[in-house]
C-alpha cells in the first residue's frame, strides 16, 4: 500500500512538474523509513548504465539503531528531465519487498545474469521484475492522473507536441507517447486500481 500512498500524495499536489527532491523523496522517506537519501552525480558510461541505487543499513554508533541510507548515483551529464526520471525510478526501489531486494552476493549475481540474458516474464525473478515495474511507478509519480488529465486532451488534439508536454512536466520526451497511451491506464489499474479506495476507507 505504500506506493499507493505516495501516488495519492503526488496526485493531490495539483501542481506540475512534480518535484523529486524535497517533495517525492520526503514522502518516500516517511513511507518507507529511509533515514537518508543521497543523489550523487558520477561519471558512468551511458551506453551501459544511466544510474543505479545502492542501499545500505548500518550502525553509525554502537548501541544506535540501524541507519538506512539510500544512495542514488546517476550519470553526471544527464539533462534535467532524464536525471529526474532516472533518479525517480531508482528511488521507487525503496518500495521493493524483501524478496525483490538484491541483498546477497548470490542474488546480485542472479540479477546481473538476468539483465545480461533476460528470462521470459513468468520466469523472471522478483528482483528483475521490480526493475521494469519501478519505471512505471516513476512515470505515475512524475505524471499522476490529474496532471495527465490536464495535458491529454491538448496532446490528443495535437495542440501540444511530445516535446511541449515533456517540457511542461520536465520528463524525457520519449516517455510522453507511453504516458499518453492506454498502457498508462492499464498499468494504473494494476499498480493503483481500487487500492486508492481501500486507502481512503482505512483512514
Amino acid at each position, binding site marked *: 500500500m505504500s506506493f499507493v500512498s505516495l501516488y495519492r500524495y503526488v496526485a493531490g499536489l495539483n501542481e506540475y512538474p512534480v518535484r523529486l527532491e524535497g517533495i517525492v523523496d520526503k514522502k518516500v522517506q516517511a513511507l518507507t523509513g529511509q533515514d537518508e537519501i543521497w543523489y550523487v552525480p558520477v561519471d558512468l558510461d551511458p551506453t551501459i548504465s544511466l544510474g*543505479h541505487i545502492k542501499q545500505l543499513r548500518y550502525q553509525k554508533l554502537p548501541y544506535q539503531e540501524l541507519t*538506512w541510507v539510500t544512495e542514488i548515483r546517476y550519470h553526471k551529464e544527464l539533462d534535467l528531465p532524464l536525471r529526474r526520471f532516472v533518479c525517480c525510478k531508482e528511488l521507487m526501489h525503496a518500495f521493493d519487498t524483501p524478496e525483490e531486494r538484491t541483498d546477497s552476493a548470490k542474488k546480485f549475481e542472479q540479477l546481473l545474469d538476468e539483465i545480461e540474458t533476460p528470462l521470459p516474464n513468468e520466469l523472471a525473478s522478483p528482483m528483475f521484475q521490480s526493475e521494469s515495474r519501478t519505471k512505471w511507478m516513476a512515470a505515475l509519480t512524475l505524471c499522476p492522473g490529474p496532471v495527465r488529465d490536464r495535458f491529454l486532451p491538448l496532446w490528443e488534439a495535437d495542440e501540444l507536441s511530445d516535446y511541449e508536454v515533456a517540457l511542461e512536466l520536465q520528463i524525457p520526451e520519449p516517455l510522453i507517447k507511453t504516458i499518453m497511451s492506454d498502457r498508462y491506464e492499464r498499468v494504473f489499474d494494476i499498480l493503483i486500481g481500487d487500492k486508492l479506495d481501500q486507502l481512503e476507507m482505512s483512514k
Partner: protein
Amino acid sequence: MSTHTHVERMKTALFPAEGTAAVNVKFFLGNDRRVSAEQLADQLDRADAQIRSGAAARATALDGGLAVKAL
C-alpha cells in the same frame, strides 16, 4: 593487475563476510540493451571509487530550481 572479475570484486565489496553489506542494488540501463554482467559490475565499481576518492559528491538542487505551476 587484478585477475578478479568485476562481478567477483563487487560481490565481495557489496556483501563482505563482516561489516556493512548492501541491502539492495538495482540498475537503470543505458542505451545499449546488450550489456554484460561484467560491464554493469564495472560501472558500480567505478562509481564507488569516485565517491571514495572524493571525485564525486552529493548533489544539491536535483530538480534544478524548477518553477512549479498550479493545475
